[in-house]
């Protein structure tokens, strides 16, 4: 679901980034108001979980791959505004250091995965859990919410891809950016997410949520006056285990739909390389595709996971040290 650079026109990227600005501003204000300083590092841990979940690629027939995002999980643990910021920072790190998702299309990626996904997931989950009387309603809500959240995000990404050939064509009538219209992008994105990728998101969300409920029930922000301010040890162990297991994500061969490189797109069915892609921005990431040139893929992948997780936790710890707690102010 990470839209690379040059798949969307600069105009679309600008509109999507502009759409995200108010979401970021409101989220920052809400987080400042609602989350105590001591709990801010947990946002880093949550962002790290999201980062790791995006590294577990799952293959589907047809040679394409996808992954979970974990946005609904963060929204249920820390609130949708915190999820918006956490996933945005994770996406920024992926774009700048690992070249996963474009720099220009950062706004669009954030709109899909950091805004639509957690807010839809959270709204559905809270709606279901408030209506259900049965035990385990939270889990049912989380499952349905995460499934619908990731599909809503995929739908948005498909629309962003699909409108490109309608809006931007060169003098010869060929698409300048993404060459596939809505008739192709919608089924291509949604079939995967309605089936396996949606299921992966449900498994990841429910699995981690059950784990958290069992090992550290005080973690949720609705109990934010509790004594739990540090990341609980079981959660750290789980994160460490996931980092070690990240090379499993390499078992999925092929590239996710809409994430082909400039040299792959012609062979992927388009038959030509759109002009906007050849003349567009080509950002050279430090560790492109989570790998170090010349190294075994699995090792580079694991190193990238360690760097990503550590960097996210450090960033949020630094933010927490600069942030004044709402508890202290009151």
């Amino acid at each position, binding site marked *: 679901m990470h839209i690379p650079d040059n798949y969307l026109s600069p105009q679309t990227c600008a509109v999507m980034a502009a759409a995200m600005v108010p979401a970021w501003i409101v989220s920052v204000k809400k987080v400042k108001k609602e989350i105590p300083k001591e709990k801010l590092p947990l946002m880093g841990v949550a962002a790290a979980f999201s980062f790791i979940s995006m590294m577990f690629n799952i293959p589907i027939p047809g040679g394409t791959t996808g992954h979970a995002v974990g946005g609904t999980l963060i929204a249920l643990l820390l609130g949708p505004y915190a999820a918006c910021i956490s996933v945005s920072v994770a996406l920024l790190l992926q774009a700048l250091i690992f070249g996963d998702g474009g720099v220009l299309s950062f706004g669009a990626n954030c709109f899909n995965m950091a805004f639509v996904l957690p807010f839809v997931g959270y709204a559905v989950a809270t709606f279901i859990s408030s209506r259900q009387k049965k035990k385990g309603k939270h889990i049912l809500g989380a499952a349905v919410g995460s499934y619908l959240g990731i599909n809503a995000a995929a739908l948005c990404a498909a629309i962003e891809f699909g409108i490109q050939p309608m809006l931007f064509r060169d003098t010869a009538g060929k698409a300048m950016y993404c060459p596939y219209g809505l008739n192709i992008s919608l089924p291509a994105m949604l079939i995967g997410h309605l089936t396996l990728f949606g299921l992966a998101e449900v498994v990841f969300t429910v699995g981690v949520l059950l784990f958290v409920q069992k090992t550290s029930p005080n973690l949720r922000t609705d109990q934010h006056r509790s004594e739990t301010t540090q990341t609980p040890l079981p959660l750290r162990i789980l994160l460490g285990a996931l980092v070690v297991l990240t090379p499993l994500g390499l078992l999925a061969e092929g590239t996710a739909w809409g994430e082909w490189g400039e040299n792959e797109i012609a062979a992927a069915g388009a038959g030509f390389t759109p002009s906007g892609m050849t003349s567009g921005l080509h950002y050279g990431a430090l560790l492109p595709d989570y790998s170090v040139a010349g190294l075994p893929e699995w090792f580079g992948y694991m190193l990238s996971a*360690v760097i990503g997780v*550590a960097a996210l936790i450090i960033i949020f710890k630094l933010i927490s040290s600069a942030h004044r707690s709402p508890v202290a102010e009151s």
Partner: protein
Amino acid sequence: MHFISRLMENDAQPKPSKILPALRIFVCILCILLCALAKNAFFVVAVIAVELLRLALQTPNMIRQVLKPVLTAVFFTALFLLPAVFLGSPRTMSTVTLKVFESVLVLSMMNATMTWKEVTDAFRALHAPQIFVFVLDMAVRFLVILGRYSNAILEAVSLRSVGKTNWKTSQTGGILGTTFLKSQQMSQETSEAMACRCFDGEYKSYASRRFCTLDLIYLLLIPALIALFFYSEWMMK
């Protein structure tokens, strides 16, 4: 004053490590040396990953304390090497900046996680010359003592003055001069106290302890680092 306050803070809250300080300093130097010798990014990136993970486990204040010198060094390195990008070798900039990032990060982490007492103890254990350890230890101790002394004078002078005074120009000379005279007096007193206590130049470390299992595990890091270095060099040939 900032440096002195750091020393005082460090002096006030010693957090003795479970691993021998000498071993930690040796591993730190080895890391920096191997990174300087590395002809590819793999070894450097691997060390950075481990150090970042260690840093992520520290408190926010310590993270800030560690990252400040690292980011300053990285910024200036990148700035100085910027012409390399325009002269056609952008890789030079990224390679050198990455190595500087790694080296300063390793040093800064060591500085943040070791007390000054542990540092002098480590130098003694590494068989550094007695006079070197003595001068280093004395310098660190007296920096703190004289820092406190000059701080007290500054406070006293400011309490006795009326109106606005430009301290930087008018009073600093007097305060520093008095501190210098005090240091002369203190060094004389220290020398006499040492003579009374039969100091014969032998600098013993009373805090040193026996080699334990944890140290042995840490010791294994040395061959592991060297093996990783040669593996990375061989892989990238």
